[in-house]
């Protein structure tokens, strides 16, 4: 049964919440059940931001979970917090550019991607989230990359339109790196 409980976490502004939403939109487009819930509090720019996304073939019970099946960490505090919580057999995807540490666990799959560096080379460091999402989709197969791209097209604001193609390339690149 398709079922992933994923935490996206990073600094505010890195696009962790948007990457999670894009996964949720994609899940609906592929007729799966989804929930997306952010950590919310009196936040400030540069503070931490994370969300939990559940994509499943069965109706979602608890929308908030203590042990995710996958975690996508965009910065060091997120690795420290969620690295140890990933369920055995699960997946951890690390933004190597901003995380000067390794995860010592051998009971999960860990993928390191220098996402911020590659995104910068591709024209915008803020596309790191799409690289990591691409890797996640490739590694889990929970949804198809094509649907992620078509949903991105639907949900990117008018103002961000010019970044559509570069973001698609970032998704593609991330997927290649997770092969």
């Amino acid at each position, binding site marked *: 049964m398709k079922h992933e409980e994923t935490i996206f976490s990073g600094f505010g502004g890195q696009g962790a919440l948007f990457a999670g939403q894009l996964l949720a939109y994609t899940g*609906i487009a592929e007729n799966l059940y989804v929930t997306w819930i952010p950590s*919310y509090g009196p936040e400030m720019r540069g503070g931490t931001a994370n969300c939990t996304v559940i994509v499943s073939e069965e109706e979602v*019970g608890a929308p908030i979970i203590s042990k995710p099946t996958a975690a996508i960490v965009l910065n060091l505090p997120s690795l420290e917090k969620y690295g140890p919580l990933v369920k055995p057999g699960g997946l951890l995807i690390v933004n190597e550019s901003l995380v000067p540490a390794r995860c010592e666990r051998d009971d999960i799959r860990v993928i390191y991607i220098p996402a911020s560096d590659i995104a910068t080379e591709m024209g915008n460091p803020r596309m790191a989230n799409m690289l990591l999402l691409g890797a996640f989709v490739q590694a889990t197969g929970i949804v198809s990359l094509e649907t992620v791209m078509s949903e991105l097209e639907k949900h990117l604001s008018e103002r961000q339109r010019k970044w559509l193609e570069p973001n698609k390339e970032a998704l593609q690149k991330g997927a290649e790196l997770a092969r």
Partner: protein
Amino acid sequence: MAKELLKGNVAFAEAAVRNGLQAYFGYPITPQSEALEHLSGRMLELDRVFLQAESEVAAINMVYGAACSGVRVMTSTSGPGFSLMTEGLSYIAGSEIPAVVINMMRGGPGLGNIQPSQADYFLMVKTAGHGDFHPIVLAPSSVQEIIDMVGLAFELAEKYRTLVYIAGDGAIGQMMESAELPPMQEVRQERPAWATTGAQGREPNLINSLYLGAKALEEVNLRLQKKLAEIKAHEIRWQEYETEDADLLLVAYGTVGRICTSVMREARKQGLKVGLLRPQTLWPFPEERIHELAGQVRGMLVTEMSAGQMLEDVERSAAGKCPVKFYGRMGGVVPMVDEILAEVQKLDEEVSR
């Protein structure tokens, strides 16, 4: 209509619009401010009334006024705002007019915080304002259910000329989930016969909650109680999961109710015969069904994001027929599946002795 990804606060606001909401009065407070944000655009676009009042006290009295004129009206808030509204709520109840109030509960007491909570159960279900009355209290556990309950709330409010509360929490407000909105409904043009719409050419309608004579006020109260008895007879709602063969029962509502569906699945994997009863109306409460199940199961576990408020109603309903245990988290902490599961295992051991 197709399923879309909707945030709870936006979903209930848009559901109200599509159910023919004519006027909204409110004051922003986290975790439900997205509702005001959404309505401030939508209501004006549709040439309806949206007004951000100077406080919750003002907002509820505007709701009172608009409700008297027979329009479909609503407000929404969170704990601190709800506390401010209680005087107006009692006036609305005493005047027997329909209104819908949504409370997306947050951590308390006091200013507390903005995380999810269910600690306003007593406030909403037991002490919703001074005097003898009960609002109908609906408790959604998903974005879809809060959408559906907004429609139901208007229907019940108008059918019984009563207050209807929706008891949500910060998690349902902030969560995005796949859900389907209802089709756009025409705004009702005619006003009810009792409404104060201008008395030219007819006897004036008087809406009031002041009765100086004790006998007269007792008459009003007797009529109110008769209506509440009727509501109790017809409007109790709940959902059951795998209760047929259950010998342990979880009782939980709202966000915790859905978390308990996961607890139940996990417990069943471990061979425990666990069922779940999720009240969808907190008043009237599914007391008879819980009483019945108390005769079937070996024990019950009530779980809430509070110190144990609905617990009292479950204990009252079970009436000593089986042990009733409690697990709660407070202050905005959401209980996790494995924590509740551990309590279920503990309960199983205790009642097996």
